[in-house]
């Protein structure tokens, strides 16, 4: 009956709701903006970098940042031990970090999604086997696994991405499986089954869409983790080759100067902190927004 007649005046418009969702969580807003900014920096790295990140100028090595005594605006964040522009290297490092994070998560989530759906949907032996393998990987301390595999495979961007992709997959398997089991038990899937929907239909129409929320949230956190761990591998000299400006490599090289040219290690460190921060905030925010249970209360 006359639903249109129901008083709509008090209900917020979709745009207002969205804005309220963002504005309510100031930290989340900050995270979203920061994240977008970092992505833009990565995309437009060549356009915004003041210098070639690989161009060294040894006469100008270890210049302090512009606002310190002896610094110039030519090199706003100073130069590293080989006279390369810190700002440009950090800007280009964004690309490495985001590439590692994004592709790593893509591999991990794709693998996790496929295996997790298989496990959750097929059940039985398939499930037991997949979960056994998953738990196996989760039993070995993550960093140890990564370090050992990286030391065996050697340094390259592809290796780093593959390592993170594969070693993170178990987490996604677990989450996907859990969600699939939860959704399967819920009424609408059962009714879909009773209505004779095909397996494929059920997976793609009912289960997959419901997985996107939780997986997206986890992916954000994991991406932040990968960026974190890329730096860790770089610190041990196991990440991408040294001629690629990654934050891990910069931090690793900069640690020798930490007492007298602290900016060489400090800024890549801050870059990691801010990127990781943006993704954590983004993840928190996504979780709030995507989880209707939490959304209900302010």
């Amino acid at each position, binding site marked *: 009956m006359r639903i249109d007649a129901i008083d709509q005046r008090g209900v917020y418009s979709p745009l207002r709701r969205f804005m309220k969702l963002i504005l309510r969580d100031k930290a989340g807003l900050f995270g979203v903006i920061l994240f977008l900014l970092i992505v833009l920096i990565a995309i437009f790295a060549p356009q915004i970098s003041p210098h070639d990140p690989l161009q060294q100028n040894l006469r100008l090595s270890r210049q302090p940042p512009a606002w310190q005594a002896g610094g110039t605006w030519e090199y706003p964040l100073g130069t590293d031990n080989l006279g390369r522009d810190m700002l440009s290297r950090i800007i280009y490092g964004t690309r490495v970090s985001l590439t590692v994070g994004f592709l790593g998560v893509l591999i991990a989530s794709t693998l996790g999604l496929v295996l997790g759906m298989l496990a959750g949907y097929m059940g039985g032996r398939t499930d037991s086997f997949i979960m056994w393998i998953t738990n196996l990987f989760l039993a070995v301390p993550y960093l140890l696994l990564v370090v050992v595999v990286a030391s065996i495979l*050697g340094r390259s961007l592809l290796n780093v991405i593959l390592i993170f992709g594969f070693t993170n997959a178990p987490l996604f398997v677990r989450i996907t499986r859990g969600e699939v089991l939860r959704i399967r038990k819920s009424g609408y899937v059962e009714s879909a089954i009773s209505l004779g929907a095909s397996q494929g239909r059920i997976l793609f129409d009912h289960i997959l869409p419901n997985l996107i929320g939780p997986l997206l949230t986890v992916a954000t956190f994991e991406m932040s983790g990968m960026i974190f761990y890329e730096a860790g591998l770089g610190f041990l000299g196991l990440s991408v*080759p040294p001629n690629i400006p990654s934050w891990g490599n910069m931090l690793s090289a900069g640690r020798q100067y930490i007492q007298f040219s602290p900016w060489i290690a400090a800024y890549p460190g801050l870059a990691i902190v801010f990127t990781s921060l943006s993704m954590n905030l983004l993840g928190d925010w996504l979780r709030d927004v995507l989880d209707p249970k939490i959304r209900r209360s302010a």
Partner: protein
Amino acid sequence: MEKKKIIGLGLVFLVMVGTGTALAGGGREAPAAPVSTLRVAVPTFPNSLDASIAAERNAQNVAWQMFDSLVWANDQNIVEPALAERWDISDDGTVYTFHLRRGVTFHNGEPFNADAVVYSWERGTQPHIEWSDRWGRAKSVEAVDEYTVRITTEEPDPLLLGVMAQHWNIIPPRYTQEVGDDGFGQAPVGTGPFEFVEWVREGRIVMRANPNYWREGLPRVDQVIFRPIPESSTRMAAIQTGEVDIVNRLTVEQAEALEGVPGVNVVTYPIDRVFYIAFNNLTTGVDQPTEDARVRRAMNYAVDRQAIIDSLFGGRAQLATGLMTESNLGYDHSIDPYPYDPARARRLLADAGYPDGFEIGFAAPAGAYTNFEQVAEAIQGYLADVGIRTSLDIMESGRYWDLEAEKALPPLFGDSWSERSGESLPRLLGALGGWDASFSAWSDPTIDDYLARIGVTVDQDERAQLYRELHQFMYDDPPFIYLYVPETFEATRDNVVDYMPRAAEDYFLMFTYIR
């Protein structure tokens, strides 16, 4: 660093009579009896305290404070008596007769005698010993009587005494058999200036002065504590706070930064390592312009190596004039490094028929050596200035060395070679041995001839002369672009006296004391 003038004995095959006091060096205010504690940071965790098993330089440095060999190489790489008071060498150069010092005992009271030497050799040649090949340079070691040992070699071996000084730690037979090789590595016993006290796994290694040391008046501190600190920035922090007295393996920047710090003295010295760009005349370099000596000389003129050193190493490295370093026997100081002279390089190239230069492949390892990628890039630029266009391939070092061993690298490739024996022969053989050497891509009959002769010349002077001639030959017909000899950076607290590290980055703490 202050170089000590040592009263040395020039010729090894003269009968030598050395005394401990002659070695004492120039300590001005050395304490009469050992006092105080010396704390030394080492950058790695020693794998074993048995000098024959200690895998690398730093572990060896720790171990050797507790041992002696029959002979000892002084600061000038001149071999001097140690546990042997003197020795004779047969005319054909293959039989050495050592007369052992009497009255020396191991730290545990076992007597030092010919049996101990024989036992040490027998154990040292077993395959599970890290340095078994060094012990294996002697074909046999026999006890003639309690204090006489006869050592025989297959062929005259001019490096034998040097190797003995470096690697033959004499160990007590009874104790070693009792505890086994593993046990010995955990708690070694030697005749050296310091005796083992404890090894707190990976935390500290403690030694105290050997009160009965045969070198009178040594050692000068009564305790040495080695602290493994792998992270160089932590080592730097620790020397600043005075938690340790000696640190090594710092970076040039750290050394520079420490220069102004009160209470800290920076120690730098060139090490026995040469960096070079190698040519290839065996595989990929065949029929390349680089087979022409003029081209190779041109390339040596074309690269401004001093600029590279100044910019990349803060000027803290020396120009190489050959594959030898100043500390090596027979180094010819009269040879000046190739100057930077691009005009001359172009003329030479024109003479050789390449007025417009040529294209050639070039490779360098990534991450293996400090700034070496940048060095390679700079060289690429300088070569381009005289018309030599290179395609520089910087590759992951593991793969690089695999290719190098297979002689599959491009005709120009960069690398370095270190040497610890004090002579350049092993390095020369390794880098220029042609097909016989894994990492060589060069073969030259003249060089082969020199190396063969040096290899059987036991007379140190004669050998030095051969080295000098070879040095000159390799300057005129260079099989490498000679680059630089790097320096190493260490630091001590300013009250540490007579810490005297050598070009092989080894040191003997028996002379060192705290003021």
